[in-house]
């Protein structure tokens, strides 16, 4: 456990040392929310509605993009060498990927909470009567996203391939899930396609929580995300091969 913690601490600190990652999760997310919210506000009677829409949907976008943070944390060129040394050490291979999942999960989670804490009062947006539920629901989603990033790394053995593939997939799922604009008005087929995108359901859960204080989706989504995380971590342990580092 102490060995694991040592690795974890280094991974966690490493993430904060990467300016691109820190900015992508704070400045870029906040900018997207503010700019898109501002642009969309012309359609509404009250510009607050537009900010609320983009705060929640862009947050989900940010959570999913956490997969890229994880893949970067796992397979960056400099870190790969360090990983190789851990393989030779007596701690085994499990801490290599699990500490990366945990570190990027915590990193994204903290930064996203920071974004919410700053933007909500600034834009007068509410995330529900009990913000704790909202924050709580974010946790397993962030974890699942991080695990997804690592899982893709284990399959494709390359950070670059993973992040390209993931960013494209995430963008597509988000467009389908109505992150940038609603697809409901575009005909029945598209509305159906939209329902196939998991992003749609994640959005639904966060929106009902923030706008109606409706906790119907909380438990199912929470458990689904946890189940997915467990599956992904199991997938990592099955596909992680030390030979990839040689």
């Amino acid at each position, binding site marked *: 456990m102490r060995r694991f913690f040592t690795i974890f601490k280094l991974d966690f600190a490493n993430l904060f040392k990467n300016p691109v990652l820190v900015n992508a999760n704070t400045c870029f997310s906040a900018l997207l929310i503010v700019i898109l919210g501002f642009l969309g506000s012309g359609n509404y009677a*009250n510009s607050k509605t537009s900010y609320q829409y983009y705060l929640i949907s862009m947050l989900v976008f940010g959570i999913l993009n956490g997969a890229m943070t994880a893949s970067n944390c796992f397979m960056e060129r400099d870190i790969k060498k360090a990983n190789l040394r851990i393989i030779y050490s007596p701690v085994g291979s499990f801490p290599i990927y699990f500490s990366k999942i945990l570190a990027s999960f915590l990193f994204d989670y903290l930064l996203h909470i920071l974004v919410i804490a700053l933007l909500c009062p600034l834009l007068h947006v509410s995330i529900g009567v009990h913000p704790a539920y909202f924050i709580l629901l974010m946790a397993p989603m962030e974890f699942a996203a991080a695990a997804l990033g690592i899982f893709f790394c284990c399959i494709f053995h390359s950070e670059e391939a993973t992040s390209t593939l993931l960013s494209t997939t995430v963008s597509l799922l988000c467009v389908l899930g109505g992150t940038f604009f*609603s697809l409901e008005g575009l005909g029945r087929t598209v509305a159906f396609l939209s329902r196939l995108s998991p992003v749609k359901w994640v959005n639904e859960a966060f929106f009902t929580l923030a706008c109606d204080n409706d906790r119907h989706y909380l438990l199912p989504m929470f458990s689904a995300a946890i189940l997915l995380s467990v599956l992904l971590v199991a997938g990592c342990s099955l596909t992680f091969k030390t030979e990839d580092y040689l």
Partner: protein
Amino acid sequence: MKTFITVLKNNYLRTRPRIILLVVMTAIALSSTMLAVYLSGVPHVKGRVVLITKDEKTVLGEQSKYLKFSVAQKEPPYSALVEQKYDAYVTLKTDGNYTIKTLKNQKYEEMLLYLLTHPKAKPPKIGYERGIGANIIGFMMMFLMMLSFSNLFVFADDKEQGQIKKVFAAPASFWGYLLAHVTYCLSLLFPEYILLVILKLSGRNIGFSLSEYAGLIVVIGFFGVSLAMLLYVMIQKSDNATMLGNSIMVLATTLSGSFYSFSKNNDILDHIIKVLPQKAIMDFIEYLEQGKGVAYCGYIIYVILFSAVLFAISCIKLQKMYIKRV
């Protein structure tokens, strides 16, 4: 010329281990184009309205075809309005008047009331609606640029692993090397073009002519490649460059309204957005669609110049880094 051919061949050979990735990315880009084509064929609905009534039989006799009605006994949650699942909740009062609950602006509410009371009338126009060609290019743009970004991986690898130093030290042509990468990236956009050709041949309306599409794809691709190359040159680690580049791309492309045109008018922001090449492309294709392409060719020239400047900066920087300092 010799360098050009050698590097180009080498690029294709190095694509082989990444072929799955390339196929997936291309498939996603293609499906986005298909989505645009499909969406353009769907009739435009002005509003999705929920009629709240206790008695389902008293549904409106005549309904405007520009509105999509659904009937509910109880008011749907507020979040459905925020999420834009519905545009308005309408209750029919006993005196025959409507109460409208919507989050949209006054103008929209007036239009909705007008359509409710005049079911046969045409809706008043709010803003400009773009055609199918602009839609296709708008949906393709982001993916085309992402493709150019990831397809420059050979250059990024060369630079990160220091091979580029050897290339430039060898008796190889500097321009041949760079042009080979640009050509390689542009050639991988070919499947998109093939899809458009197939759509055209199958008799679908795709807005522009095939030669116009070819030109636009090359311009967009070149812009993507120039930006990607500049970032790879400026930033040491290629994965950081990719991440930054994709972020910039998503932000700039969304801001230019490639998927969805925004209606907010704000002078300062409008001026800022106008600088974006993506916005210039969108503006240009809208004019092209109206048949005014030649008169407004300044937009597309701006994009080409912008890319050329980016490209020139990377060239100068590369020469400084690897050639003059040897």
